[in-house]
């Protein structure tokens, strides 16, 4: 259970945005992965996508982020029609954590803070919230998989963007890590942010919508 000892920093206010996915169809080669998938994600909502391996959870997240062009359907952020908007609104956590082996979390997170036009002050409080503040000067190659993932989650939070797309966020995390992830997601939703996560684990996020992608083939 989330032990809510974590203190989260004060970031500039989020601009909550709605995400609407309508009639999305995705395929890989000649295999249809997702057919006619629709989703309406309001600010503050969370969605947990599950389904067996190969059902297209990752591909669907990548389509929402704009990396994959869908066969049919639309992904609309906020009010305007959009394809490039994702680059302003989405914070992404993929299979890989986006860390360079020789870089320490401090170097990496400062770089991404600058890239996303955010201050560097929240780095330490967010690392503390994920319980990795003591690793701030250790090169990523010497962090465990779970520690790298926690660091990537800090990067996601640091971007201060309203819509989080997380692919297996809890994959390498231990029990404590999952509780801290849940607290992080809670905090994000309390600020008007929304989350879509693809996961195999039974994550306990209060009030999260659950979608079984196996049913959309």
């Amino acid at each position, binding site marked *: 259970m989330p032990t809510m000892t974590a203190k989260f920093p004060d970031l500039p206010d989020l601009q909550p945005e709605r995400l609407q996915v309508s009639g999305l169809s995705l395929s890989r080669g000649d295999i249809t992965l997702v057919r006619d998938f629709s989703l309406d994600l309001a600010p503050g909502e969370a969605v947990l996508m599950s389904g067996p391996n190969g059902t297209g959870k990752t591909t669907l997240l990548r389509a929402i982020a704009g990396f994959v062009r869908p066969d049919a359907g639309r992904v609309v952020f906020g009010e305007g029609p959009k394809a490039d908007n994702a*680059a302003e609104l989405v914070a992404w956590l993929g299979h890989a954590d986006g860390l360079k082996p020789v870089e320490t979390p401090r170097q990496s997170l400062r770089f991404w803070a600058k*890239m996303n036009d955010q201050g560097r002050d929240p780095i330490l409080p967010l690392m503390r919230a994920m319980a990795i503040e003591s690793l701030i000067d250790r090169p990523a190659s010497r962090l465990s998989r779970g520690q790298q993932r926690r660091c990537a989650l800090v990067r996601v939070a640091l971007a201060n963007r309203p819509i989080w797309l997380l692919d297996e966020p809890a994959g390498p995390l231990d029990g404590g890590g999952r509780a801290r992830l849940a607290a992080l997601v809670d905090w994000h939703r309390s600020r008007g942010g929304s989350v879509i996560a693809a996961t195999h684990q039974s994550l306990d996020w209060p009030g999260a919508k659950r979608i079984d992608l196996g049913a959309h083939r």
Partner: protein
Amino acid sequence: MSAFGAIFSREAGLAWAGGGGPAGPAAFFLGAITLAPLAIGPAADLLVAVGPGIMGFAALLSVLQSADRLFGDDHADGTAELYLLSGLSLPWLVLAKVLGQALATLWPLPVIGLLGAMMYGVPVLPACVGALALLAAIPALSLIAGFAGALAAGVRRSGLLIALIATPMMVPVLIFAAGAGRSALAGDERALANLLLTIAVSLGTTALAPFGIVAALRSRLG
């Protein structure tokens, strides 16, 4: 602009920390120009004649040597996805990245080119013109290598694909850069023309290649 400065300095730093900085291309370049005379033979007039050409040719190969890491690493560790979602202007982003790495890894090439040409017996002035031409060729060579590297990102044994894509595209800049050194050796006024053409190719590549690199990165993620 601070974000692009951050990319530039990060790439330069990563090239030093993770890839040995300029050691790889420099060692490759030195090895090639040291071995070539052993194959060509010891005739002094022959070595003077081939000197400028060998310098241009060996520099081109040493740029290709590290091309697979330029975007291959970003593709593998998830950084490429984050770049696409950064909200920054992507052509500027990849330009800052490629030039940052070029600055960190390729700066010895003109120096080695100058010393190597003199080692082959080329007089100082033509050797300097050849080294200047190499310097002018670095943006074109590194951006073409970056384009090939982006197209091959995530492909196993990408080195083969990069060599096949990049070598034909490097033909003009090789001809002009090596031509500048050769014309200067012959005391020919075309040396300046060749040098200017090398700069022109580099400027044209700087203007166009970033768009190609962005398109290649996108298609490799799709």
